[in-house]
């Protein structure tokens, strides 16, 4: 087991968005967390990434383990540097005042200087040719779809082998959505473990191996994507009948 979240309860001030949820991700898997707004999906990702206050939810019970060891004391930058997990946050959060290339370069901050970065930049540009065309532009001038590509490319440049994505399809035109999900599938086939948070449950379950359904901070259902897609309750609540 690569990552396991065990009976996690967290609080932001007096609000408790997670009431003891458990899930795990194995190496090489695509796992998805689905559920309505406020179900605790983003909170789960922020907890795993150990974001610093005031963004970080405070863990009051339970544990998060990486390869069996608790990571509750790990610094957020070490989640990237040592555990090789990278988050593509909701809303992209690219650095608009830097060029596309600078965004990608910055993501290599914690890596060895002698790493073979050239091939990796090339790999990003092969996956997202638009980024190559625009590599010298300030990234705030990119379209929404291009910004999402940059956010994914940037996360990959951290040298991660575990990608966490928060609503990557939000605001994308349908074609771009499918392109992005095809890219995620390809990355997974090349060995990338993926934890995907999505509101578009259909799309997510068709990509993922397994899924968890969250409902107001609790686990409502879990299982293989196939089972969840066939589950009448899940169908009714999250897949539009």
């Amino acid at each position, binding site marked *: 087991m690569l990552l396991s979240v065990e009976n996690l309860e967290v609080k932001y001030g007096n609000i408790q968005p997670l009431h003891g949820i458990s899930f795990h991700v194995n190496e090489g898997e695509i796992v998805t967390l689905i559920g309505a707004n406020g179900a605790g999906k983003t909170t789960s990702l922020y907890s795993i*990434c150990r*974001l*610093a*206050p*005031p*963004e970080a939810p405070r863990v009051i019970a339970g544990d998060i383990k990486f390869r069996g060891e608790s990571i509750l004391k790990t*610094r*957020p*930058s*070490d989640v*990237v*540097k040592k555990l090789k997990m*990278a*988050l593509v*946050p909701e809303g992209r*959060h*690219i*650095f*608009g*005042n*830097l060029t596309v290339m*600078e965004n990608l*370069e*910055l*993501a*290599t*901050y*914690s*890596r060895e200087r002698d790493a073979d970065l050239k091939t990796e930049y090339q790999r990003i540009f092969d996956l997202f040719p638009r980024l190559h065309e625009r590599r010298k532009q300030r990234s*705030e001038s990119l379209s929404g779809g291009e910004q999402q590509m940059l956010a994914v490319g*940037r*996360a990959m440049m*951290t040298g991660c082998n575990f990608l966490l994505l928060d609503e990557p399809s939000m605001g994308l035109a349908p074609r771009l959505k499918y392109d992005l999900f095809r890219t995620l599938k390809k990355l997974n086939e090349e060995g990338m473990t993926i934890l995907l948070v999505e509101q578009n449950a259909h799309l997510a379950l068709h990509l993922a191996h397994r899924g968890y359904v969250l409902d107001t901070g609790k686990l409502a259902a879990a299982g293989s994507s196939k089972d969840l897609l066939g589950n009448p309750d899940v169908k009714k609540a999250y897949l539009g009948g």
Partner: protein
Amino acid sequence: MLATIIQNLINALQWGSFYALIALGYTLVYGVLTLINFAHGDIFMVGAYIAFFVATFFLTTAELPGWAALALTIPLTMILTSMVGVALERVAYRPLRRKGANRLYVVITALMCGLILENANLALLGASRKAFPPMITEHVYNIGGVIFTDLKIAVIVTTILAFFVLHKIVTKTRVGMAMRAISYDKFAVPLMGIPMDNIIVITFVLGSGMAGLAGIMFAMSYPILEPYMGALIGWKAFIAAVVGGIGDIRGAFLGGFLLGAVEILVVAFFPSTFRDLIAFTVLLVILAFRPTGLFGVAKTTKI
């Protein structure tokens, strides 16, 4: 006529150098933390005092020749002043940041830190002024009616060099890139594997180092030190940074020289008591027309 213009230009550049160097520290910290570090003027004062003690030690205790003392005093003062800036960050600002304190409290804390530095100085060293020991003999030159000293030229050249080094760091290195990234989106920086606190510490090192450099050169040019020497010049440098467009180092640098030039020009034509009145009126007019400063583009880019 030409001689008068050049004379005033040299004076303006020299006087503006101090504002420019101090303004850089304001703008760096603001860019990274959106914090107006009101203690920064007093860090400049501490820099001048550190230079005083370091120079005195090298000249009298170690009995080094003046040039050697100067060569050692400059880097040592910059390092020690940086440490004061970093200590302030550790003790005062970081705990507030950890707790997610409102910006108002952080600014008040900065003001208090400045007062503490001034009054600690007063308590430890007394109210008497200190005379800065001369390390080098100044030479006065007169070329075609323009009178200047080698020290004046050295101040201007050093300031410009320091700016270019800083500019290189901010635009070309990964640390500089991280500083600019923080100013745009603080949330995403740790997600890139960048330890935020390290970048903040480096920012304080750079900003306070510049203030330390300004401190030595100021003490050499006007060799009387007193605990409140940083207050007014700090406020003025802050205004220079805002007029230049706070958050942008080019703005701070040019804003500093602009303020220096305005002050020198006023004194050239009016009684010197008019200096601050007219200088600040001019700056007010500039801000009325460009509220984000000369280089400021509202909220899109900082540093």
